[in-house]
């Protein structure tokens, strides 16, 4: 009631500090908050950027349908990923997380869009900037943070760390640049072999795109028509080297040569989703591999030991943050199309903050893995064996 009066008085005052259009939308928002959810639009159709094509006659659709439910889900997932990465940043600075920590904030739309375009039964493999994908592939924030802090509650029981997290149909988390691409082609081979209509999404970065093994994988995937979606997440910098200084050709979507490719705006979750659906359909129809380049950006440096400003300007980072942030873009779209209210979004933010805090609590209080498990899991499905410790009298036990 009070809000309504303030609103009316503002309008009567002729909008002291706001312009007309804003007042109207604010009014709609105010009115919206007192409405029931049934008054939101259940869905809306959005124009999305056309993809540049390579060896393809037709690309993904230029219009995407987003339901309210989907929008809220994507928002929630992206915001959770964002807050999780920022929490990891905080924990690293407190030296609770150690070693390598490569953060994904800024690139959320890629992970969420891809997951929305494939099925949970499909396969996915990526490199070391993997926390986001670990989450979208079904691991809880609690288990991810506990793995980062090296505790027994971590998804890899504390033995893997940031770069080595695994889940069902998610094959990591790989530390050697480019090595995951032949692995992905192999996963696709298995899908083809089994004939289960599944595809494999194989991700790599702009830095990895110059690895020879990637071209070897392209050749074999195309030769054998493997159902593999190769995705290059181009965030413009391979560690400290910009794409122009590393690659003779920066058209990463064309680098598959004989493999058809498309260039996708990686900051828009809907564009990524439509492109992934298109690519998955292509692969499932038996036409062979396809290549997607996602143009995206990372706010943090390459890893936590890289400030990220020696090879790019702060202004550049700020500009992307203010103009192309994937989470803000989705939020603005939903609110301006009356698919959600600001209050609702704020509520979701509060819930997510709480969830992340609880997960961080767990991750810092969970005990470290017990020493008895030091040598376990060297092999799979093996009888227990003895492992040499640091000296000949130290005989440790290993079970599978």
């Amino acid at each position, binding site marked *: 009631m009070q809000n309504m009066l303030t609103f009316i008085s503002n309008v009567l005052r002729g909008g002291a500090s706001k312009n007309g259009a804003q007042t109207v939308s604010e009014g709609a928002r105010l009115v919206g908050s007192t409405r029931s959810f049934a008054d939101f639009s259940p869905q809306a159709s959005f124009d999305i950027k056309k993809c540049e094509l390579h060896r393809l006659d037709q690309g993904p659709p230029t219009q995407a349908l987003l339901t309210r439910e989907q929008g809220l889900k994507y928002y929630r997932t992206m915001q959770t990923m964002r807050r999780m990465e920022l929490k990891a940043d905080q924990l690293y600075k407190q030296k609770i997380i*150690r*070693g*390598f920590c490569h953060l994904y904030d800024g690139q959320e739309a890629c992970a969420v869009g891809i997951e929305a375009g494939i099925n949970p039964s499909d396969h996915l493999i990526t490199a070391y900037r993997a926390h986001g994908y670990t989450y979208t592939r079904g691991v809880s924030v609690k288990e991810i943070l506990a*793995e980062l802090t*090296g*505790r027994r509650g*971590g998804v*890899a029981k*504390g*033995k*893997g*760390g*940031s*770069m*080595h997290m695994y889940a069902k149909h998610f094959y990591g988390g*790989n*530390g*050697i*640049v*480019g090595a995951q691409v032949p692995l992905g082609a192999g996963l696709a081979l298995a899908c083809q072999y089994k004939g289960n209509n599944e595809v494999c999404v194989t991700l790599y970065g702009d*830095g*990895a795109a*110059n*690895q*020879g*093994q990637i071209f070897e994988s392209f050749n074999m995937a195309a030769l054998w028509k493997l159902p593999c979606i190769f995705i290059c997440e181009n965030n413009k910098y*391979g*560690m*400290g*080297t910009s794409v122009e*200084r*590393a*690659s003779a050709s920066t058209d990463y979507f064309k680098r598959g040569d004989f493999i058809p490719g498309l260039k996708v705006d990686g900051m828009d979750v809907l564009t990524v989703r439509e492109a992934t659906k298109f690519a998955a359909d292509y692969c499932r129809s038996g036409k062979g591999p396809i290549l997607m380049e996602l143009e995206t950006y990372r706010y943090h440096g390459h890893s936590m030991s890289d400030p990220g400003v*020696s*090879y790019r300007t702060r202004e550049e980072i700020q500009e992307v943050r203010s103009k192309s942030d994937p989470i803000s873009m989705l939020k603005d779209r939903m609110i301006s199309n009356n698919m959600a209210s600001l209050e609702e979004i704020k509520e979701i933010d509060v819930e997510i903050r709480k969830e992340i805090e609880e997960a961080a609590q767990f991750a810092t209080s969970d005990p*470290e*893995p017990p*020493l008895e*498990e*030091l*040598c376990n899991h*060297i092999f799979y499905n093996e009888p227990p064996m003895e*492992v*040499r*410790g*640091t*000296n*000949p*009298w*130290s005989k*440790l036990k*290993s079970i599978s």
Partner: protein
Amino acid sequence: MDKIRNEQIRGTVKVEQFGDKAREARLRWFGRVLRRNRGYIGQRMLEMELPGRRRRGRPQRRFMDVVKVDMEMVGVKVEEAVDRARWRQMIHCDFQLLQVTVRDALNQAMDEELERDERVFLLGEEVAQYDGAYKVSRGLWKKYGDKRIIDTPISEMGFAGIAVGAAMAGLRPICEFMTFNFSMQAIDQVINSAAKTCYMSAGLQAVPIVFRGPNGASAGVAAQHSQCFAAWYGHCPGLKVVSPWNSEDARGLLKSAIRDDNPVVVLENELMYGVAFEVSEQGLSKDFTIPIGKAKVERPGNHVTLVSHSRMVGHCLDAAAVLAKEGIECEVINLRTIRPLDVETIEASVVKTNHLITVEGGWPQFGVGAEICARIMEGPAFNYLDAPVIRVTGVDIPMPYAKILEDNSTPQIKDIIFSVKKTLNM
């Protein structure tokens, strides 16, 4: 523009750091005041408390506050001021031998060799504009430019091969692997193209190349980034493999490697990069080299021989210090070179001590320690052993991430001490 570090200037003209000298002056005065007659106004001033209200904020530091810290730093107590000669001796600050970190030692070595020989150049990931992933090549690109310091894309097999090709044509490349774990991507070029070529061509084609980078375990970098490659590279004829421990090793061995006409693998250690060591004036000279293939006895002893390389040498010295308190004198040998192995130095030591323990960070099977055992057994020193050779190694597992697990996966000082006592039957 030539950068000369302050420590270097001070070391050369043998001058102390100003702060240290000022501290010595403070303590000298303090001693003087204390030795004066009782009731000397200076003594009363030391403990005086000013009357009246204090201002807001942190109380001002007084002479006594500063002197207390000084005394702690130097390790003297107030009571000791009575003895003037002893006091003066204890507070005296000596000019320090130049302290150089391993990182700076490697940097200087490369800088000097780049300057000395035009054919030398450095290539690798992030070595130029980023100043090196671990800042080892800091300042080199600014000084030498694009032609001599080359940033490569992430293509190890490719750029290692390119480096070998350049060496075959007469240049002297330094090929940096960001860590030796990534050298596995390129190992064919190191072994088949670099190591074997001189032999295959019957001496016609030389490959004067240096492969360098951090090797072995770091801190919290998990399984794929923590492997030690000393055994793998040490296995191959045609390669020389060195593993420096301290700054002097780093400088001397890297310079020798660059000047050597053969492929040399330099296994550095990331955890040692930031550690500072004293380097003698001789060690700072532009032509200081350490011969490849010669080990160094870092600490003489006659009860047991500890042989090690890289970071573990420090662990051995620490263990030796602890054992010395119990009357056990360990002889610590720093291998410096993995291939060719300096067996003579080890044998001479075993003849003296009759007990041998090898210490390494890598895995036990087919490792450096295993090779030393075999060589000792094959040679004259076998008859002087009073007990089997003991290998202290990393645990035979991929490196775990969690801190408690990682700490227990590589040799700790207590493991060395335990092994020494076991072999001496104590």
